[in-house]
């Protein structure tokens, strides 16, 4: 009896956060693959590079949030209707900003992000070159 009560309490603890979610069944194609394997591969690759807006830090492919499911449904439907992954990404970026994409485009606000690796690599190269030359002497 005591064991059952403990289990029940544990279950209630897990269930509490679910209050913030709807109990609607998921949207069409949210958790179902596209019949066309090539399209599904494209959609899957795209979903892995789109950020979930609710559980930030997860991709919509990994997230269980309702909104992520609705976004997967939207991505699959758009890919199925013939849109390219880049078009779908651009459509979402127009609404949520580059933030929604794990592949931020090169822009004035992301220029540091894109160029920093090359600058650091060049800096390292110069240091290494200097040190090697000195050792050769």
């Amino acid at each position, binding site marked *: 009896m005591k064991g059952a009560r403990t289990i029940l309490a544990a279950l209630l603890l897990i269930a509490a956060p679910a209050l*913030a979610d*709807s109990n609607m069944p998921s949207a069409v194609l949210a958790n179902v693959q596209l019949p066309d394997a090539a399209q599904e591969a494209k959609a899957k690759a795209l979903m892995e590079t789109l950020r979930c807006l609710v559980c930030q830090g997860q991709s919509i492919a990994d997230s269980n949030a309702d909104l992520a499911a609705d976004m997967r449904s*939207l991505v699959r439907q758009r890919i199925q209707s013939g849109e390219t992954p880049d078009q779908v990404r651009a459509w979402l970026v127009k609404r949520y*900003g580059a933030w929604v994409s794990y592949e931020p485009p090169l822009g004035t606000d992301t220029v540091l992000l894109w160029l920093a690796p090359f600058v650091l690599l060049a800096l390292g190269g110069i240091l290494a070159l200097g*040190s090697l030359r*000195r050792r050769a002497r």
Partner: protein
Amino acid sequence: MSAPVATARRPWLLWVPLIGFVLLATIFVIGLRKPDDPAISSKMIGETVPAFALPAAARDVQGLSSSDLADGTPHLVNIFASWCVPCAAEAPQLEMLAKNGVPIVGIAIRDRPDDVAGFLTRYGNPYRRIGSDTTSKVQIALGSSGVPETFVVDGKGVIRLQKIGPILPQDMADVQAALAAAR
């Protein structure tokens, strides 16, 4: 040893690591002290509301389409859900705005007609129309990422303001100012 030779020739080189560390530490401290803001604002401000047509979210209410918004007067578009707890918290504020003659329309997210009707009887109905968005399609098209959220849309159907989270008494001035500016 080559390093002492280099620093002897250029003594300021000795300070570079310390300056680098202080710079990084300053950036980190500033970043850590900044309050965390997980809200994602819509990039649709200043854009026309994307075309949509949603069916009625409950019996005895009318559905909502984008053409209802471009009728010459500014609207409040309130995105809510019966399963959303903070949506109940903003009900008194919406009620007050509706009483002042502000046209408020609703978009119910992932909701059932019976649940929406129950929500309206419990917390009042400030809405002229309520569209049912069962798959968040219109919500995503508006660049909204949660409930509740409210958009101020001007008479031409252009989005002017996004309020993320419930409209609390202290937010009323901002919302009313945005409505006045949209007129």
